[in-house]
């Protein structure tokens, strides 16, 4: 329960209901009655949200993320794969029917080899090892029933829905396909760049890559990441 929201909402609701009835019966002023009725409505919405919404222990969550991030970063550093460019595979290319991120440990993965990969953290294809990671926001991707789309415009809509509407980490997302078949994704006015992770592909890039793979229905390779002010420019192929 968000106590602040619930208390303020309840107060507004009570003041609104009592005030509007009083003003309607005693004062007979429709404008004041309407204003107080509106106040009661906003109060009711605020109260419902405050009552239902669970309050997260933000400090503990931050500490947990920091602890996990640091250890994963150290592990990747030891394996010398912090700067390795990953590939994103759609759910159709995985045995468990879920999208995945492939980090090559020796050689880059070819599209022909990426068929029905087993559900393991370390996988080997023709004796070449790869790391198969679980991408972020898989539940959200599942909930939104993201599947193969026809054009880049639809990809842009889906990415906007996720980054702007659901996660609220960017103000606007643009997707464009260049003639050399590279895909340019520009997320402008970013509010969150994915913490202090030193690796090549952080939270946002991994999420965008996964959505691209899922919507285009093919293997997507990460090419480049650029940050210009508050804008995040990502290139995929």
């Amino acid at each position: 329960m968000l106590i602040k929201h619930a208390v303020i909402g309840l107060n507004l609701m009570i003041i609104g209901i009592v005030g509007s009835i009083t003003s309607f019966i005693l004062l007979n002023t429709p404008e004041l009655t309407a204003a107080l009725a509106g106040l009661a409505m906003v109060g009711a919405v605020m109260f419902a949200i405050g009552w239902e919404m669970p309050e997260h222990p933000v400090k503990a969550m931050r500490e947990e993320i920091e602890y996990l991030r640091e250890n994963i970063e150290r592990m990747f550093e030891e394996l010398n794969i912090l700067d390795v460019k990953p590939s994103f595979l759609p759910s159709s290319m995985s045995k468990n029917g879920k999208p995945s991120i492939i980090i090559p440990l020796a050689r880059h993965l070819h599209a022909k080899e990426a068929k029905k990969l087993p559900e393991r953290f370390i996988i080997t294809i023709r004796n070449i090892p790869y790391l198969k990671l679980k991408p972020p926001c898989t539940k959200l991707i599942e909930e939104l029933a993201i599947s193969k789309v026809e054009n880049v415009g639809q990809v842009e809509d889906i990415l906007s829905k996720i980054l702007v509407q659901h996660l609220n980490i960017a103000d606007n997302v643009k997707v464009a396909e260049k003639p050399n078949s590279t895909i340019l994704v520009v997320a402008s006015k970013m509010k969150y760049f994915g913490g202090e992770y030193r690796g090549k592909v952080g939270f946002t890039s991994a999420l965008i890559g996964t959505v691209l793979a899922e919507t285009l229905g093919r293997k997507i390779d990460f090419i480049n990441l650029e940050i210009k002010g508050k804008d995040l420019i990502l290139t995929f192929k």
Partner: protein
Amino acid sequence: MAEIVFIEKFLMRLAAGMFIALVTLILVGEKRVDVYIAVFILIYFIFLALYSPLPKEVEKGMNIISKILITIFIIIVSFRILEIIAPTIIISILGP
């Protein structure tokens, strides 16, 4: 955290929308309370549609409010329709 920011944005814009509607209707010289309330309810549903889906946790509470508001809206509209097609019924309900 992002969910709370999203919810707060929804609340702020809903309140702002209602305030703008209130000022506009006052400036127009509207004196009927039911018109104000009907417009507020419409604004609520517009913002709910614009910001949907709201986080899963609040859906239950919002559904209850939506049901109450749609009932009030139906009552208001029904009275307005009855006023036009059968004014005698209105007089018998509300008294002379």
